[in-house]
């Protein structure tokens, strides 16, 4: 997107909403924004009806800000809590049928590659554990097998939060939930293992406890997907309603789960690793020592 398309013509200034003007003047369309700046400018995510204190919202907010090219990104989601926020972002959002995300993303990415040969257009799937590991499982796996060049982010709240708390394939074994009245009978699906087996170029497991790390991981995943192949981020984004986590304790829960079984983990294929190291080296050369220090800190 050319910045010229976004800019407000002076003649129309007084007719456009203040929030649009703020978005264009101060938002991440014109400059790269840091997580620490969140709240100091008009961000791309508008008010949304998600539950107060939902960890997913924080994750989405940071993830959207971290996109390497907000103005050239398209998000794909599906039914679930996440899309309540995603559809309120100033980024085109595709909302299709349940379970179709990675198939839609495959067609969209290929179409955009045909149309925009010299301009990277990033496609990001952001959907829940039900949408990706259960009903959309086949589309996810096949997009990985086909090495489609887009990022898949699983907002893993380990439950069908939006439909009122049924078990999903990503729910932990033994959890008592609606449709699992005697406790879930099988283990949490190993989507990370499946991603490795499928040849996904970059995989990360993350909790929302460290927003700067969330931002770095998203950025990495999107850039690697652009050049190398599919990338996958599995993010613990607890459901405070179905798991009865008091709003002020959401981050305590995230820290506990992170320590217990959701520790930060990342994996690169050799090709992705080589590409990423080169990208970082080039970036450091270009941006100088200050930038270098920051990127070290976020590792």
């Amino acid at each position, binding site marked *: 997107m050319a910045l010229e398309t976004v800019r407000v013509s002076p003649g129309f200034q007084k007719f456009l909403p203040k929030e649009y003007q703020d978005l264009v003047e101060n938002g991440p369309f014109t400059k790269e924004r840091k997580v620490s700046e969140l709240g100091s400018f008009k961000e791309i995510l508008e008010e949304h009806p998600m539950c107060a204190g939902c960890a997913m919202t924080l994750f989405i907010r940071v993830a959207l800000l971290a996109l390497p090219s907000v103005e050239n990104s398209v998000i794909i989601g599906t039914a679930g809590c996440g899309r309540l926020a995603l559809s309120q972002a100033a980024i085109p959002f595709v909302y*299709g049928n349940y379970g179709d995300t990675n198939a839609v993303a*495959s067609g969209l990415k290929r179409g955009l590659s045909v149309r925009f040969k010299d301009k990277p257009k990033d496609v990001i799937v952001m959907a829940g554990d039900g949408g990706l590991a259960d009903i959309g499982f086949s589309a996810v796996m096949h997009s990985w097998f086909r090495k489609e060049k887009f990022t898949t982010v699983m907002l893993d709240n380990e439950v069908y939060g939006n439909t009122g708390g049924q078990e999903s394939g990503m729910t932990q074994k033994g959890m008592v939930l609606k449709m699992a009245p005697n406790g879930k009978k099988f283990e949490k699906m190993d989507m990370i293992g499946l991603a490795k087996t499928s040849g996904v170029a970059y995989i990360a497991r993350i909790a929302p406890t460290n927003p700067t790390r969330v931002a770095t991981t998203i950025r990495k995943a999107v850039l690697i997907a652009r050049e190398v192949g599919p990338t996958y981020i599995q993010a613990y984004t607890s459901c405070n309603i179905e798991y009865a986590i008091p709003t002020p304790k959401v981050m305590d829960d995230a820290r506990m789960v992170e320590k217990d079984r959701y520790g930060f983990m990342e994996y690169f294929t050799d090709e992705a690793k080589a590409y990423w190291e080169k990208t970082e080296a080039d970036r450091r050369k270009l941006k100088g020592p200050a930038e270098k220090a920051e990127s070290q800190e976020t590792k």
Partner: protein
Amino acid sequence: MSEGLGEEVKTNPQGDVITAAPAPTKEAKKGAAAQRVVDPDYLFLQAPREKTFITGSEAAKEAIRRANVDVAISYPITPQSETMQQVGYLYAEGYVKDYYRGEEEYGVMSAIAGASRSGVRCLSATAGPGLMRGLEVISSWPGGRLPAVLLIMCRVINAPLAIQPDNVELSYMLNTGCLLFHAENQQDFYDYSLAAFMIGEKPEVTLPVAVAVDGFFVTHARGWVSLPAADIKLPPRDCYHEAVPMMDNENPPIRISRDAPIQKSNFISYQMHASWQQEIWAAQERSRKWIDRWLGGLIEVVNPKAKIMIVASGSAVSQSREAVRQAAEQGLEVGLVKIKSVRPFPADEVRAALDHAEKIIVPEFNYVGWLAKEVKSTIRGSERVISGPRVFGGMSMPTELILEYIMGTPNRR
């Protein structure tokens, strides 16, 4: 392959000759590169044509060769497989820019939704159970205002399992909001498929178009097809002139998403959804002038003054033409209304063509009689309609059966 081995002809369990995929020749690649864009009017109506004797699948391939397709996504299902594999050859030769085999029909039809949203011209094809598997997604294309082309090579819907022709699947397509054309023969399949791209992409239409043909009877049989030269093609999709923005983020960062769900329970939401649905059907109506222009009308009428009229679509039209000829031999004038466009349904045209008729016969290749129902609900005096004869499950329709209905079978409803 050695000369000696060439003598042994291998077939698959269905009896089709097995051939390896041919590597694209240099000549073929040059052909794709040399194609020039021409005006659709020229390609459809004026360009000199030559007759060739080809199968329905080959006719579809020739349409796609001239359609300037960006992305084609395929999945095998009998009797569609041959066409989409031939589209693969077109891709290898450079006539199609991207092509792949999707995971299954739900995935393929979803991917077409993604590709269409990106602004490219895209296409897939399916048949029978494959259509049913993809139908959830296909039904959401019109709401997404996604101009894509879907070829349907009709076949029985299971069970019991069969691969034979039967067009009951079209009854499920009637209410999706997709435009739906039903080709009689190989020539129609070529003409309708090519025009479908241009009609669906018109700014006032911006809708998907399904082009159906009866499997095997047409797809695997040869017929005469008049084709323009292969060195011309349609202009590319002009996506910024369509009814909705592309999902390419080339627009200002607006705060409404084109595909956001409308689900809050309030009057404005109901109103929005209702008007959006009405708009889809209104857009269908606006496609009429282009169908008139490029396909010569939504219907064709033979012997318009006859008191006994047959109404048919698809390959039932060919059987009906023969029945009309045989009736004439016996001194009886019978008329025929061929329905080319099932959606939009040519209600005014059908009413006018049947106003004078005393008896209306609707032969169909399906059990449910969806076309007879359409005709009955359209015309005045529906008791004039004899819903039949009908054959299904792959049976061919003897013209004698249609003649029997013409000559005196009592009105059966």
